[in-house]
């Protein structure tokens, strides 16, 4: 999962799109996934995600992301199968309606997570924050909190990796099934969370020492005008949400 949520430098039209439009697009794909009840449409959303990833020059990353989400989706799928009791039984505890609902749930989950993760990979957090402040008039404090939260994820993961490497070098065997991995990693979560929170706290002070509180709406260096790709993207947003509600 390492690096999957981090920004990938590039100069594709997706990179140059207005950060707010990208955010809107991601949220709309997400909303469409939640609104839709059709397997075909959900699959189509996934295809759109992959296509957007390819257009942003991060197709490989999008595939790895999909693989990671598929694992979580599979877990959801199995859980849903276990607990869904309506419909005709197919085999063991599986019913036909259960299988369909479970598949939709898993697909919906993947289709909703993908666009947000891709958006983060193709938008600089700084641009997103600045655009939110300058164009969407979000108070800087909230925009900064959002960007800190986004930064928190890779930070947490790299701390986790560091501690696991340190443990492995002292003889703890992390190889083996996912269950074993989770069992070994779980007790590390609290100290890791504390380390990460302390780090974020430290960077909040560092930000204050560089004039955090002076920031106003006018003080951004870059402007975020709407480009040629932005209008079609906004139209796509509307279309997707509409289709999601219909299907």
């Amino acid at each position, binding site marked *: 999962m390492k690096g999957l949520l981090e*920004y990938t*430098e590039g100069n594709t039209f997706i990179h140059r799109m207005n950060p707010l439009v990208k955010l809107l697009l991601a949220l709309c794909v997400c909303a469409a996934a939640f609104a839709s009840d059709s397997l075909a449409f959900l699959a189509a959303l996934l295809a759109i995600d992959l296509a957007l990833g390819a257009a942003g020059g991060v197709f490989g990353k999008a595939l790895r992301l999909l693989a990671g989400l598929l694992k979580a989706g599979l877990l959801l799928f199995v859980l849903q199968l276990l607990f869904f009791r309506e419909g005709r039984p197919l085999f063991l505890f599986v019913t036909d309606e259960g299988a369909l609902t479970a598949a939709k749930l898993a697909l919906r989950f993947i289709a909703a997570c993908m666009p947000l993760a891709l958006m983060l990979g193709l938008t600089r957090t700084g641009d997103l924050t*600045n655009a939110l402040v300058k164009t969407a008039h979000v108070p800087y404090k909230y925009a900064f909190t959002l960007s800190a939260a986004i930064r928190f994820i890779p930070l947490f993961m790299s701390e986790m990796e560091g501690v696991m490497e340190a443990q492995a070098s002292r003889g703890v065997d992390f190889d083996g099934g996912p269950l074993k991995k989770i069992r070994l990693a779980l007790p590390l979560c609290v100290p890791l969370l504390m380390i990460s929170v302390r780090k974020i706290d*430290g*960077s909040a002070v*560092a930000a*204050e020492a560089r004039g955090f509180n002076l*920031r106003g709406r006018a*003080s951004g260096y870059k402007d975020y005008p709407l480009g040629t790709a932005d209008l079609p993207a906004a139209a796509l947003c509307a279309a997707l949400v509409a289709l999601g509600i219909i299907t």
Partner: protein
Amino acid sequence: MISVKDLTFVYEGARKAALSGVSMEIRQGGFVGVIGPSGAGKTTLLSCMNGIIPHHFKGDYYGSVKICGKDTFDCSLTELSLVAGTVFQDVDGMLINATVEDEVLYGLENFGLPKAEIAARLEEVLEEVGIAGLRRRSISTLSGGQKQKVAIAAVLALRPQILLLDEPTGELDPASSRLVFSLLKRLNRERGITVVAVEQKIMLLSEFASELAVMSEGRLEFFGPVREVLRHSEELEKIGVNCPRVVALSRELEKRGLTAGTLCVSVDEAEAEVRRVLEG
């Protein structure tokens, strides 16, 4: 410029004072090197100068710190940030943007400078610190030393009157360390910027700083012009601060009565001195 009076600070929950009875007067345009073993209170001292203590870290605070005549207790961190820029020891925690360019822009944007000024300063500082080639790189892909340079550039760009640096060359190779200190010296000389730098490499301090502050266990053991402080080489060794080899050599020459009174702090000076002894 910076006036510290009888400063004692105990972190909340700690049993021992991190600083006890520290007093020092740093004039405008001074270049002070702070040295001492780890845990001596160097970082704590800088935190008191930039206002992080008492505004962020709580604890028992006695004495006073005045920056440009104003007590740090009475100014907010933001007010202080306009005067004093800090390069923190924890560089990773200090870098809060995704790319090098954004990181340097960050403070400039906060300060609300005009666009043309921001562009000019960005170019200039990237050039000065020697990271123009890293401009579009993602911070997470940089080495420790490169990150340190970015942190330094981000603070220099703000052109503070006072520069506080906490082990800014900790992860830099010798050549880059010298580059950073020559740059600091130049800013100090040309723009009259007051520099306070915590640094473990005594050779860098003896060459570039004008005053030396030696700390040990929360106390300021020595504070004065570099040459005068280095005279106490035996006491410094006891504290755990090794003097530069040229100082040892120069002291040895003096002890044997070959030279009188001039302590050499750089290789060039020592070379001249040794030549004089050999010829005379």
